[in-house]
C-alpha cells in the first residue's frame, strides 16, 4: 500500500514533465531559429589558414565534427571564391579541413569579404581599386571601395578591382558586379551592429540571388502579402455573411446545427484537399473555360488555365472560411439579446439593428477572425504548391501596367520559398542560413498574428465580463 502510494506521488511528475517538455521544445525551436536566422547576418570573423602542406586559404568557420575514418576532428570552412580555378575544390564553396593538418590560423585585418552577383562571395585580399586611370592600393583601395558602395547603384563609378585569393592568382573584378563589402576582422563592435542591421534590411528588401543562396526574400514577402489581401477580400464578406445568417437569421433548427458542425469540421479537412479542389475546379475547370472564351488568342499557352494569384487566393479563402465563420459567430453569440431588442424596440429594421448595433459590437471579433485567417493563410504551403506558387516569379503580381493587379500571374510565397530553397536548391548547404532567416520571418509573422488574436479575444472577454 505504501509503495503504491509512493508511485501515485510520482506519476504526476511525468505529467508536469510533459508540459515542461512541450514548452522546452517550443523554446528550443524559437531559439534555434532566432540564433541561426539572425546570426547569419552578423559579420563572422575570417581566418587565414596555413596547412602543413604549405597551402594557405581564407574562410569563415562553420562548424566542427568528428572525422569519419579515424579519431580526431575536422572543421568546415566557408571559403567562397567559386571562380578561383586554383582551388582544388573548384566550384564548391565549402571545405572540410582535418585539424591535424592545420599549421597556423590567423585573423588578418585586411581580409575582405565581397558579395558579388554571378559568382557568390569572395574572401581574400583587395589589392587595388582602379578608376579612370587612377590606381589605389591597399587601405586607399578599401576606402575607395567603401565610398563607391555607399553610393546608390546607378551612381557608382565604373571601376575595376584587383582581387587576390590567398590560394590563387590575382584577377580583375568589375565593381558593377559587387554589391557589398566588409572587413569583418577590422570592424568595431558598433560597425558590426550596423553591418548586421544593414544585412537584415537587405534580406527584407531585396530579391533572391545566386540560386537563393544570397540576397533576400522581398518578392516572397510581397507575394504572400498580396495573396493574403486578395484572399481576405474574398473570404471576409462571405464568412461574415454566413456567420450572420447562422447566428441572426436562421432558425436554430437541427439543420442549422448540422451546418454549423459541418463548417467546424471543414476546419479539420487537410489543406491539401483544398489544393486538389483548387487545381481541379478552379485551374483546370473554370480557368480553362475562361481561357477558351476570352484568351483563345494566346492558347495553347494558358492564361488563367494555370496556377496563379486568383486561384491561390480563392483556394485559401475556402480553407480559411471556417476560421472566419467560427470566430465571427462566437463574437455575435456573445452580444446580449437585450442590445438587439433595444434597437428593434426603437423601430430599427433588421438591417439597421445589424449595422448600427450588432456589427459595431462584433467588430473586434471580426478583426480576430481576419487575423486568424491571415495567420493560417500565411503559413499554409501545401495547397499553394498545386494552385499557383512559383519558385522564382519573373514578374510580381502588382505593377504599373493596367490592370495593375495581375490575378493570373504566378507569385512567390514565403513558405514555399523556404521549402524550395531547403530541398531543391543546387547548393542546400550554402542556402541553409537564409532558409533559417526565412523560417524565422515566417514564424514571427504567424506567431505575432496569433498572439494578437489571443490578446484581442482575452481583452474582449474581460471587457464583456466587467460590463
Amino acid at each position, binding site marked *: 500500500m505504501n509503495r503504491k502510494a*509512493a508511485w*501515485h*506521488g*510520482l506519476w*504526476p*511528475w*511525468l*505529467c*508536469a*514533465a*510533459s*508540459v*515542461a*517538455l*512541450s*514548452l*522546452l*521544445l*517550443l523554446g528550443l525551436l524559437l531559439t*534555434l531559429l532566432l540564433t541561426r536566422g539572425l546570426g547569419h547576418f552578423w559579420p563572422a570573423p575570417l581566418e587565414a589558414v596555413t596547412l602543413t602542406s604549405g597551402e594557405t586559404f581564407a574562410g569563415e568557420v562553420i562548424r566542427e565534427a568528428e572525422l569519419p575514418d579515424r579519431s580526431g576532428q575536422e572543421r568546415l570552412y566557408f571559403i567562397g571564391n567559386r571562380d578561383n580555378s586554383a582551388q582544388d575544390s573548384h566550384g564548391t564553396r565549402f571545405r572540410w579541413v582535418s585539424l591535424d593538418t592545420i599549421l597556423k590560423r590567423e585573423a588578418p585585418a585586411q581580409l575582405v569579404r565581397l558579395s558579388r552577383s554571378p559568382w557568390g562571395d569572395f574572401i581574400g585580399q583587395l589589392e587595388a581599386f582602379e578608376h579612370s586611370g587612377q590606381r589605389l592600393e591597399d587601405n586607399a583601395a578599401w576606402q575607395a571601395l567603401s565610398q563607391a558602395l555607399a553610393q546608390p547603384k546607378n551612381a557608382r563609378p565604373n571601376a575595376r578591382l584587383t582581387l587576390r585569393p590567398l590560394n590563387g592568382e590575382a584577377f580583375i573584378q568589375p565593381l558593377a558586379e559587387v554589391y557589398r563589402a566588409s572587413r569583418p576582422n577590422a570592424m568595431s563592435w558598433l560597425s558590426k551592429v550596423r553591418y548586421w542591421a544593414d544585412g537584415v534590411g537587405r534580406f527584407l528588401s531585396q530579391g533572391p540571388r545566386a540560386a537563393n543562396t544570397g540576397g533576400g526574400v522581398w518578392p516572397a514577402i510581397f507575394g504572400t502579402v498580396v495573396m493574403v489581401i486578395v484572399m481576405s477580400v474574398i473570404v471576409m464578406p*462571405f*464568412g461574415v*455573411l*454566413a456567420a*450572420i*445568417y447562422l447566428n*441572426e*437569421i*436562421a432558425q436554430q433548427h437541427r439543420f442549422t446545427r448540422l451546418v454549423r*458542425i*459541418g463548417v*467546424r*469540421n471543414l476546419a*479539420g*479537412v*487537410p*489543406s*491539401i*484537399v*483544398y*489544393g*486538389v479542389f483548387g487545381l*481541379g475546379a478552379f485551374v483546370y475547370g473554370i480557368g480553362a473555360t475562361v481561357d477558351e472564351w476570352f484568351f483563345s488568342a494566346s492558347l495553347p499557352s494558358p492564361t488563367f488555365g494555370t496556377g496563379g494569384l486568383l486561384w491561390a487566393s480563392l483556394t485559401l479563402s*475556402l480553407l480559411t472560411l471556417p476560421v472566419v465563420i467560427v470566430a465571427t459567430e462566437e463574437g455575435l453569440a456573445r452580444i446580449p439579446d437585450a442590445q438587439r431588442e433595444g434597437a428593434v424596440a426603437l423601430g430599427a*429594421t433588421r*438591417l*439597421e439593428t445589424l449595422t448600427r448595433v450588432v456589427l459595431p459590437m462584433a467588430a473586434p471579433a471580426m478583426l480576430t477572425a481576419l487575423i486568424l485567417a491571415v*495567420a493560417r493563410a*500565411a*503559413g499554409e*504551403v*501545401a495547397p499553394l504548391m*498545386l494552385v499557383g506558387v512559383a519558385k522564382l516569379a519573373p514578374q510580381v503580381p502588382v505593377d504599373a501596367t493596367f490592370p495593375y493587379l495581375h490575378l493570373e500571374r504566378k507569385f512567390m510565397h514565403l*513558405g514555399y520559398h523556404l*521549402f524550395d530553397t*531547403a530541398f531543391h536548391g543546387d547548393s542546400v548547404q550554402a542556402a*541553409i542560413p537564409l532558409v533559417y532567416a526565412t*523560417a524565422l520571418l*515566417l514564424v514571427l509573422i504567424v506567431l505575432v498574428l496569433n*498572439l494578437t488574436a489571443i490578446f484581442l479575444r482575452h481583452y474582449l472577454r474581460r471587457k464583456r465580463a466587467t460590463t
Partner: protein
Amino acid sequence: MISPSRLRTAQPRRQFQDRLATAIIVVGAVAVLAAILAIGIFLLWHSLPVLAMPLPSITQKLTVLAWGTLKAALFTLLFAIPVALCAAVYTALYLPPRMRHRIKPALEMMEAVPGVVVGFIAGVILAPWVEQHLASALALLVWPPASALLAGLVWQALAPRRLPFNQAWLWLIPWLLAMGWLALWAAPLFEHYLLGVDLRYVLETRLGVDYATRNAMIVGIAMGFAVVPGIYALADDALSDVPASLMEGAQALGADRWQTLWRVALPAAGPGIFSAVLIGAGRAVGETMIVLMASSNAALISASPFEGMRTIAAAVAIELPEAAPMSTTYHLLIFAALVLFLFTFLVNTLAEVVRLRLRSRLLRLGGGV
C-alpha cells in the same frame, strides 16, 4: 379621426433595404454552403473514372499510400498522445485556473508554427543529426522523461517549500535541459563501452535494418510537435469540465489525487479525451508539409521506425502538379484526396458529436450535485 393607414410604412426605402440585405445575407450563406458541397461533389465526380480502372493497379498503389499514411499517423500519435494527455492532466487537475489560462495559450502556440518550418527543422537539421548520433537521440527520447520521476523522488525526499508542485512545469525545464545534456554526454560513452561501434552501424550490419535518414521516427516527432497542442487543448477542456464536486466526493472517500484521476476524472472525461485523440488523428493523417519534408517519401510498405513512408497527402502534393489533367494518375490522386476528405470529415464529425454530448452530460452532472 383615426386614419386607417397609421401603421403603413412611412419610409418604404427602409423596408426595401432591409429586405434586400436579408436576401444578400441568405445568398451569401447559400454560397458558402454551395462551396462546401462543391468540394465534396467535385472530388466524388472526378474520382468516378477510377471505377473503370483495373482493380489491381488501384489497390496496389493505394495500399502503399494508405499504409504510409497510417504509419505516419501511428508514429505521430505514439509520441503525441502521451505528451498531450499528460500535459492536459497536469494543467487541468494540478494547476490553479489562473496559471492554466497562462500556460494554455503558450502550448497552443506550438500549433501556430507553420508545418513548413517544422518540416524544415526535422528534415534538414534533425534527421541528419539523428542519423549520425542515433544512440544519443534514443537516449534523449528515453532519459529525460525517466528523469522526471527521479526529480519527483528527489522532491519527495527534500520537500522544498520554495518549489511547489504547481510550478513544476517551470523549474522542470532547466532540469530537463540538464538531463538532456547528461544523456548527450553519456550516450556515446555507453555506446562505445557496450557496442564498441556506432549503434547505427550495428543495426545495419548485424541486424540488417535499413536506416533511412528521413524516417518514421523523425516524422513522428516532428508531426507530434504539431499535433500535441490540438489534442492537449481538447483534452484539457474535457478534464476541466469534470465537476469539482465529483472529484471532491472521491477524495472525501479517501482516494488520493492520482486515484481520483484514474477512477473519476478520466472515466468522466473519457469521451472528451477520445474525441481529442480523434481530432489529433485527423490532423496527423492530413498533414502534408511535415511528411513531405521529414520522410523519405519512398513508396514502400514497412513497419520499421527507421524507414520512411509515402502518405496520401504527400503523394498528392508531389504527383498531382505533374499529372496531366484527366489522366489515370490524376483521377487516382483525386480519389486518394476524396478518401482523405471523407476520413477526416467523418472522424471530425464523430469527435464533435462525442464532445458536445459529453459536455452537456457533464454540465448536467455538475448542476445536479
